[in-house]
Each structure stands twice: as structure tokens, then as C-alpha cells.
């Protein structure tokens, strides 16, 4: 693994930003990736680009319950926020790819997303698929969120969080058991878990990675990335907290970490306040 530093790492994130040895981050590739990211030619009907579902104004998510792709087709999952994915170890809600380079070309080919063969996409933009993958991955590596009030607090600025937010942080690590999965600088363990969200009428509406398991999303910028969960089924942070407070949706494969939390109203409010402090600057 090799990385030539040309990105400023914000407070709270690791100085070492991994990149494959055959794709060191360079400013040329970042710039090409940035252009490709917003290029609607990468969809069959020239209507959508990556940025259509990963809007920089919404922390690279889209605000919709489910993603909408070429020809107005509605996908089956919510658009995840592309925050700090350079540190990721698995990608997509079901964690099916292990590198950004493998990940970035798949939405272009997905019928419900951009619906274009890679060869045709390459021809349209005039660069080969490998270059396209390297450039898009390089650009996504530069999408970083840190230096939040939380980061300043844990790095010694003890007034950066108010009392309610500090209570929320305590609950996040303690009674709320949130750090069982949302851990570390990126607030994700990069693992897949069954939280019961996909369990409907005695079966899984979406198997995810199998047995109803989906990847833990980052919580950075969480206040800007509603609606939540892999299916966008929970519209607000309050709904998410209520869902976990009740112990998730019971099913035979429910993760042992998901259990009733017995949070009070004050505690739920504090947790929400803390989560909002994860917006970066």
C-alpha cells in the first residue's frame, strides 16, 4: 500500500490514508475523478451522474429514501454518504467489494443506477476503464470529514461540546452501546450486521450480505444524510434512536448487540444532540 500525500487530513482522521500501490493519489487523477463524478455521460440516458445520488451539498448522499437512476428507475437501497471512504475496507451496503477501485465502476453498470456497459462508458469519456476506476477512486479518497466539534473535544478543547452533547457522548459509548459498531475515527467497524431493519413479515425484504446483514455506515455528517438505514425507511434521527431503543426488529439472526436500551427522553435528546456534533467543518 502506498500513498503520495496531496490531501490535507482534517483533525480526527488518521494521517495515513491508504491507497493501492498501483494507484497512488495524484492531483491529476483527483481532478479527472472529480470531473467524471459529475459527468452524466456515464449513464445510458445521459440523465444522471455519480453526483446525482451523492450530492456534495448533502454530504454526498441524496436525501431520497431510495436512489433514483437512469430513466427514473428507483433502486432498492438508500444512497450511502461517501464520507471518508478512503479509509474503508468494504463497500456498498452489503460490503461486497474490498477496494474503491473495484467499487466505483459497478454503479455505472447497474441497471437501476446508470445502466451503461463499462466499455461504452469508456468510449463516451475517452479513457479506459482502469483509468476511470483509478481516477474516481482517487477523487473519492479526497472526500474527508473531520475537525468536527467532537474531534476538537476529544483532542483537548473541552468546551467544544456542550453539557447535553457530552451526556450524549457518554450514552453513545455506554448505555446506548453505539460503539459496538460505530467505532474509531470513521465511526464504522466496516462489518455487516443484522439490525432487523430488513426483516418484514417473517422474511427478509433484502438479504443484504446474507441473513439480513448490512454494513455499518459512518455517522460523520449524519445530520445531513437523512433518511437513514439501507432502505431509507427511517426519516429522522429521532426515528433511528427510537428504533434502536426498542431493540430493533426481532428476527432469528438479530445481532446480539442490538437489544432494548431503556433510554429516557432526556437521554434520547442528548444522543441526538451529540450526533449532530459530528458534522465536520
Amino acid at each position, binding site marked *: *500500500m*502506498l*500513498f*503520495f*500525500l496531496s490531501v490535507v*487530513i482534517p483533525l480526527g482522521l*488518521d*494521517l*495515513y490514508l*491508504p491507497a493501492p500501490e498501483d494507484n497512488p493519489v495524484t492531483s491529476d487523477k483527483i481532478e479527472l475523478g472529480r470531473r467524471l463524478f459529475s459527468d452524466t455521460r456515464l449513464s445510458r440516458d445521459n440523465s444522471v451522474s455519480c453526483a446525482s445520488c451523492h450530492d456534495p451539498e448533502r454530504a454526498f448522499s441524496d436525501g431520497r429514501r431510495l436512489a433514483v437512476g437512469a430513466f427514473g428507475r428507483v433502486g432498492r437501497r438508500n444512497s450511502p454518504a461517501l464520507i471518508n471512504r478512503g*479509509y474503508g475496507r468494504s463497500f456498498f451496503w452489503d460490503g461486497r467489494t474490498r477496494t474503491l477501485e473495484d467499487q466505483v465502476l459497478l454503479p455505472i453498470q447497474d441497471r437501476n443506477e446508470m445502466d451503461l456497459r463499462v466499455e461504452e462508458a469508456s468510449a463516451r469519456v475517452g479513457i479506459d476503464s482502469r483509468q476511470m476506476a483509478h481516477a474516481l477512486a482517487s477523487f473519492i479518497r479526497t472526500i474527508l470529514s473531520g475537525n468536527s466539534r467532537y474531534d476538537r*473535544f*476529544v*483532542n*483537548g478543547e473541552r468546551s467544544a461540546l456542550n453539557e447535553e452533547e457530552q451526556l450524549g457522548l457518554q450514552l453513545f*459509548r*455506554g448505555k446506548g*452501546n453505539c*460503539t*459496538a459498531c460505530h*467505532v*474509531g*475515527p*470513521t465511526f464504522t*467497524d466496516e462489518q455487516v450486521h443484522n439490525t432487523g431493519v430488513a426483516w418484514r413479515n417473517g422474511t427478509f425484504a433484502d438479504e443484504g450480505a446474507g441473513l439480513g446483514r448490512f454494513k455499518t455506515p459512518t455517522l460523520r455528517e449524519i445530520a445531513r444524510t437523512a433518511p437513514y438505514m439501507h432502505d431509507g425507511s427511517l426519516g429522522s434521527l429521532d426515528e433511528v434512536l427510537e428504533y434502536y431503543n426498542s431493540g430493533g426488529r426481532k428476527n432469528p439472526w438479530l445481532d*446480539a*448487540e442490538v437489544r432494548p436500551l431503556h433510554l429516557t427522553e432526556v437521554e434520547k435528546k442528548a444522543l441526538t444532540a451529540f450526533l449532530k456534533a459530528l458534522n465536520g467543518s
Partner: protein
Amino acid sequence: MKVSGMLVIAAAAVVSLLAQADVTLEKARRKETLEGDLKAAIALYAKAVSEAKGNRALSASALIRMAECHQKLGDAEARSIYERIVREYDDQKDAVSLARVRLGQTAPVQVARGDRPVWTGPEVDIFGRISSDGRYLTYVDWYQTGNLMIHDMLKNTDHALTSNKSWKEGTGQASYSSISRDGKHVAYEWFRNETSRYELLIAQLEGTSISTQRVLVSNPEIRSARPFEWSPDNKWIAVHITRVDNSTQIGLVGVDTGALKIFRSVDWRGPSNMAFSPDGKFVAYDLPQSDTESNHDIFATAVDGSVTTKLVASPADDLIAGFSSDGNLLFASNRNRDMALWSQHWAGSKTTGPPVVIKSDFGYPWIHGLTSTGALYVTKNVSDWDVHFAGVDLDTGKLRGTPVAAQRFPSRGRADWSADGKQLLYVDCSQFGGGPCVMTVRNMETGQTREVRPALHYMGFPRWSPDGRSMLTNGRDLKGRQGVFLIDAATADTRLIIPGRMAVWGWAPDGKRFYYGLRGKVTEWDLESGKQRDVIQVRTDAYSVTVSPDGRYVAYLDQESTLNVAPLDGGQPRELLKVERPEHLVNNVVLSWVRDSSALVVTKRLTAQPGHLGGPRELWLVPLSGTARKLDLDVSNWDVLSAVGPRFSPDGKQVAFMAGKRGMEVWALESFLNRPAAGR
């Protein structure tokens, strides 16, 4: 024919005598290092010298050890023995060099080339690092004060670097430490009782004392900052940071400002070692291969965080030792089955060329670092400490049959009997006591054993549920979380019940509730509802707190060496047994309730040498009503003076105990320095 026959007999006699000298030397060493009986050791060393007539190496070695014993006793005889070695053993260069050093005739310690033990005894631990000149090694006084200590290899003396008068009167305790390259400073972790967290401090080192000290890292968000090696220019220290959310990172801390440069988030277990490249531009370290693997790979990260390179990767366990004096990467690896020391050329930012074995019999030691001359200092675990079990008659004080050894190494013991006495569990962990741990369950009727591998990295003191279907233990899971865990005895399924550091103090007889606590408060936890209630407050300085199997009482020891019992449904505690100093009751962590919860067995130590493992000891049977009496059991070979004391089955008819050699030795390894360097 007669003459040659006599020669054969004479030769056989010499061989036999030499073999006997080896045995005597080993006995002497055990007597010195494990039992601490220096006078007896001196006599045995003298015997070994006389038996080793033809073996001058053995004889010189025995004389050195004998002189060291005299030195520890403050006996002037040490000097004359060293003088004798210099005078009579000029063919034994290592021994003569060492003797000269001890006589003050030469300054450097690093004269001898060869692998040799340089320090043995109960004080040896794994928390310090060697100084660049090989003279000093830091460690922690675990027995009496919790102080940061420094051992002087030259003078064989020990000095406290911090000022706790005792555990009770101290402000905290030391942990990992590291001496700067120039030998002028020491960085050390200090657990401050007042804040209940570790700080990283730095102090000026002046010989064997420190003067000014200052805090480098103290942040409520950081649980610990473990120091590894100092940079060659002494401006940075490589650290492993553990945060309060159990996430961990590696990086550097600036010596002048305490500023942290965090390179990389890593698995909570972190590296086993970190070392600067010779030019100080990279830090090399090892990390577990994945969240669920124990084997490590080796990486290097540029000190500005810009580049990370995987240096050594194989399915085997690869652990970094450091950089040799000629600039090669040294690492331990079991890729060829046995753990060996390997060398690979370091090309400034990565390794090149094939690695080569430079020491095949490396084993699994704990690495304390390299000196400027290239000697590698390690601690070896030389224990064969093991769980033994036997039938016992508490009335006659006799064992029924010969104790059986579990033959599990390295064992931690922590045995617990099932309620019906038909199953015994015990725990085995890694060489130096940490995880990963495995639990063994032995069927006492059939003798069959099976391993239970819960999703835990470390197990504290597992306790059988009354129905034998599950166990509770304090411990640490694969995410690094500490707490109380419930383990399914059949499937090993593991569930975190209560997060946090606390102990399991016993089960309620219905198996639906259990008792846990910290600092004296006994809290009942209902497994089905998750509801908890405080049941009783025992003394805050109570230890060995244990709930009786019938769920009616809690027994505990206190600082006044009194065994107390208090009813769980309220009521006043009462004394069952009180001993007067210098005798004291030993903290075995878990007390043995026997005979249907009507009595307890406790360990009494008859002398006051806190912490050390020798000295006379007795077991006492203490009934809830009636008179306590000494059990007529010979426990001289049992380890009953540690946290892992004897555990009697609930009916009092069986006992499990730890026995065997227990100890660690610090070795200076130099034999590999003469091997060819790694190719480029």
C-alpha cells in the same frame, strides 16, 4: 584389558559426575531464582563446581552465579570469587569479562558475545525496555509499591524511580516504560488513582534516579499511551494510543510538546513492538492480521504518515524485534514452524531481498529492545506452572491419590468446579498471560477434556452456572470491550452482559441471577430482565469477595487479614477468622466454599514478605459456626500464595491447585551477531 576396563569405568564415572553437575546447577538456579533461598543456592553452586571438574564452562558459570548470590546478600565473598574467576578461568572469556565488569576493571557490559541470562528473579517483568548501552532495564515493582523501577545490570541493583511507599499509600502505579537513546530520559505510563486513567510522563534519568518529570499525554479521552522506542534523535516516542471507546491508534508523541501525530487506526490489540528505522524516517511495527487472527504482519509508516508499506507478510506469525546495528530489519517468525529470528535487508523505505534465519531457537520471548551494539534483550518465560487436581479428605487432611497434572502450557489455572463436582474448567492464555485465552473443560468421571473457545480475547475468572450449562466470566471480547460475559458451555456462544471492569462474585442457586461488583458493592443482576439491584455493601477495601453456592452469604477478606461473612439478605457482617501479623490471609481472588456452603477454605501465610512467592503457608478450614482448624495438607509444593489459589469442589472432596516452576528470565542475545547479514 583390565586397564582399559578401568578406564571405561572411570570415564563413565566422569560422565555421570558431569551430568550430576548439570542437575545440581539447575537445582541451585531454581533455589536462587524461584525460591529466593540464596544461602542454599550458594551451597548448591559450590557443589556443582566440585562436580564439574572437567567442565570448566559449567564450573565458571556456577561460580558467577554463586558470586551473584553473595552480592545480593551484601557479602564480601563475592569479590574473591570474581577474582578467582579472573585468575583461574582465563579460557572462559564470557565469565572472565563479566567478572572483570563486576570487579569494576572495565566499563562496558557488552563484552561477551553469546546468549546468556542476565537477570532472573521474581521481579522480572515485561513492562520495560533496555537502555542503549545495555546497562539498565526498567520494570514495575508489582509486589510492594507499584513503582517504576530500574535494574542496573552492572551492579545487579534495583532502584525505584517513582515514590510510592506502598501500594496502599501510593498515588498510582507504573506500567510500560522506555529509556531514551541517550539514556538521559525515561518515558513511562502512570495509572493515576485519582483520575482512574493512564498518563504518559517523561522524567530526567540520572543514573538510577530521576529528577524533574512532566506529563506528556494526559487526556480524559485517552485511556492509555504505551511508549515503545524513542527516535534516534530523541525527539519522538512511538506510541500505541487506546481511547475510551476502545479504538486504538499508533503514532508518535513529541518529546518537547506532547503533541500527538496519529498515523493509523489499528485493531484494539495494537502492535507488540514498534521500532524506528536507523535514519528515524520510518516506524516499523507489527499488527494482527485481522480482527479474529492472532498472527501478525509487519508494516512501516513514514513519520509524516504519507507512506505505509507492508514489510513482512506471511500466513505465519511475524513479530518485529527492531533494527540491527548494521541497519537490517530483525523479526521473529514461525513460518518454518518453530519461532526463529530472521533478518532482512532494509533499503531505506522498504525491505529487499530474501529474509534469512539468524537464530533458529528463538522461541516466544518478550522483546525489550536492542542495544547500540546490536544485542537483543528479551524476557523468556521459563515456567512449567500447571493445574493439578486430586481427591481430598478434609477430615484427615490427606489427598486421595496422586495429583494429576493437566499438562496445559502456558496455563493460567483459574480453575472452577461445576456444582456437582463432575466438571472442572481451567484457562490457558499466551506465554505472558494475556490473550488469546482458551478454556478447557475436564469431565472428572471420564477424564475427557474439551476446549471451549468463546468469542473472547481474555478470560478473568470463569464461574460455572449452577446447572452447568453456562459460565460467567469477566474478560475482554474480540472488540476489546471489558465486561461480564455469559458463555454457553456447549456452543461457546458469548454475550456481553455488563460492560465495564468488574468481577463475577457468584451465582444465585436458581441460576437466573448472579452477583457482581466492584469496590465492595454486591449487585444482583437478573439474566432475563436485565434488571439489577444493589444487595449489600461490603468494605470498600474487601478482596476475594465470593458468594456462597446457596446464595445466602458473601465472604470476603479485608486489609486487616480478617475473613468476614455477611448475609446477602441484610444483617451485619461478622468475623470468621482473624490472623495477626506477620501472618496474613492470602488474596486468592476466589474463595472456596465447601460442604454445602457451611465452610470456607482460606490460605494463611506465616511470614510477611508481601508478594514474593516463597515462605511457609497453610490451608485453614473455616466453618460458619464452630472453630476454624488448620488442614493437615502438605501444600509446600502448591502455589497458594498468588491470585490463583487452590479451588475445592463444593462438596470439599476434590481440589484443583497450581504447581510447578514459575518464573521469567531476562536474556541478552548476541550469538546471532556473528551470522551473515541478510542479502540485498
